[in-house]
């Protein structure tokens, strides 16, 4: 937890909290955005990353509520089933959701994008990378969390040209999913164990002679997939499509080893969340848009726009470095994203 500052006039400053759905360097950018906004809007922000899932998230929220807080921005891990907690928060303070929405709850606003749509965007990249069709493997840290399931489903539905339906779920145990042009061979999970993630990628390369494209849905997956493909000497033969802005992924897009990636805008999540909460705390409800959704779209990064995107990240980081709070030199961005 980082209280952004110990200002003597703290009483006048709203105290808000920004709660993620786990620990990932994806959230580093959100943290940065939240802090920037806190400075700009004269608020204290407490950033919390629950390490152990739903339970930790609940505990952290309750402890914050117990301390008295003017607003909470939360990325619910499992919005469908965390109703009680969201109600509890909603009753005690201003609550907004970010990154992952809970439309049925008392949230005042949602800030973020749609994982299913982002998944479909990722699927589009696969289609571009492999226009003639072929077989695809999906790698993901966990399927236990809603966002990764939605992302995966988006990829599958796009490749199979299905109608959008967020509630569809092709069980990974169902085996090969065959479409007209594209075949999804399998989905492998690694439980955030990087060793296993790499092994899964290597095993897939070894197993399928006809593997056309590998999709890595958590930030750490694509670089490990690339390692496997390089070791097998199949760079270019096996296409790679990434998710999130891991620096090695971006570098590889530059080097044309990875076709492209879908990135969100975590900095904006953090920034907007704190801006909205600070406004609400001061009684300004105009910060909330009409439809109660602040849509921050995902973007597709390919070889043509990767340089510009890298520069954009660099700018964010350099301000951060000059502040001297944190510096992630070797890994500017991205782990498994929310």
């Amino acid at each position, binding site marked *: 937890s980082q209280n952004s500052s110990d200002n003597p006039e703290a009483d006048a400053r709203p105290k808000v909290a920004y709660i993620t759905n786990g620990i990932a360097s994806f959230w580093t950018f959100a943290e940065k955005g939240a802090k920037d906004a806190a400075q700009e809007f004269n608020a204290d922000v407490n950033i919390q990353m629950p390490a152990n*899932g*739903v339970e930790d998230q609940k*505990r952290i929220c309750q402890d914050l509520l117990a301390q008295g807080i003017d607003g909470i921005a939360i990325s619910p891990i499992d919005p469908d089933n*965390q109703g009680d907690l969201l109600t509890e928060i909603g009753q005690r303070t201003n609550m907004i959701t970010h990154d992952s929405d809970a439309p049925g709850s008392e949230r005042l606003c949602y800030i973020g994008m749609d994982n299913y749509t982002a998944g479909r965007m990722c699927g589009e990249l696969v289609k571009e990378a492999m226009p003639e069709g072929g077989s695809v493997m999906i790698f993901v840290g966990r399927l236990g969390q809603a966002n990764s399931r939605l992302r995966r489903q988006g990829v599958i539905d796009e490749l199979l040209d299905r109608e959008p339906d967020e509630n569809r779920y092709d*069980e990974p145990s169902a085996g090969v999913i065959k479409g007209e042009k594209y075949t999804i061979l399998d989905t492998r999970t690694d439980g955030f164990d990087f060793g296993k993630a790499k092994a899964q990628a290597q095993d897939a390369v070894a197993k399928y002679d006809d593997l056309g494209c590998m999709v890595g849905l958590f930030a750490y997956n694509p670089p490990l997939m690339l390692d496997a493909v390089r070791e097998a000497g199949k760079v270019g033969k096996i296409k790679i499509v990434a998710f999130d802005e891991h620096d090695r992924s971006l570098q590889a897009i530059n080097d044309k080893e990875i076709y492209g990636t879908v990135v969100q805008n975590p900095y904006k999540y953090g920034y907007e969340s704190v801006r909205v909460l600070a406004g609400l705390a001061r009684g300004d409800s105009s910060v909330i848009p009409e439809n109660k959704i602040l849509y921050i779209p995902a973007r597709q990064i390919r070889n043509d726009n990767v340089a510009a995107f890298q520069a954009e990240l660099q700018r964010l980081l350099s301000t951060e470095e000059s502040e001297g709070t944190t510096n992630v030199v070797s890994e500017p961005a991205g782990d498994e994203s929310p």
Partner: protein
Amino acid sequence: MKKNFGILGILLVVFIATAIGNPNFLTAYNMFNLLERASLYGIIGIGVAFVIITGGIDLSIGSLIGLVATLLPFIVVQQSFPLAVGLFAIFALSLCVGLTHGVLITRLKLQPFVVTLCGLMIYRGIARWIVSDKTMGYGNETFSGLKVMVGNLSQLPGMSGFSWAKHIPVAFLILLVLGVIASVFLNKTIYGRYLLALGRNEQAARFSGINTSVMIIIAYVICSVISGFGGLLFALDYGSIQPDSFGNFYELYAIAAAVLGGCSLRGGEGSIFGIILGAALMRLLMNSISMLGIDDQLEPAVIGIVILIGVMVDELVKRFAARRRAVKQAKVTTALPEVDA
């Protein structure tokens, strides 16, 4: 109870320090939360204590919790069986798990660590496989009756009139009842006595005509059934179950609570009261870390250090007591020879 001094002391110190550090700590809301968490972890701590007392260990608790929590909605919501069937199924499952552990350990003479380590992996795999890693939820209407167990006392029949009842979690009541039963079982019945005896010296117990195998199996069954029940409570409380991670490391929390509470992993020792204290201390620490604004990342380190200090203090207290006893003894014996001479 004497040997719980160290941990009781630490508990009080942390409690008072936090209360001073943050006045919000003592609010009814926070106390309720703290009590509830301590109760849930205390319950699984009591379960594992039985196994630890026999000199065994159960590493599969977390996975069993995950499996039970995943299975119930799977059976009741997805397969649309009645709730009673679901509850019976998870009860039967927990029982069979304990039975299997016990039988493998006593009949095949496999090591408890190994058997339950395999259990840790197997139950997790089954939980993930059955629902294909899908998140399971307890938001369903069907479970609203059960949810009383993770509510407050005023939700119990006939209790709505008492205003104080609002501030006591039902889970705490469950813990108390379970604690009293476990305590009586352990200290006042022959079965408890047998467990303590065989935990220290299995052969001696066997030579005394005790069917040690059956007693060990019973201990594992108790542990698994309580874990399964604990899993249900956790699931009801958190509402959302990710089959691949729900309950991860809970066995370590349970074991740590038991050890903090004075159970020896060598077997033959354990106090239920101590275990409850141990669980309470761990939850209190987490709460204090939040309340005092200590770096979140340091949380595991703080808990680890406090546990270490706890067992070290206990050890030193024990030694000190032994030395004092020796000195006292010395006085008595030095008094005697002079009379002799």
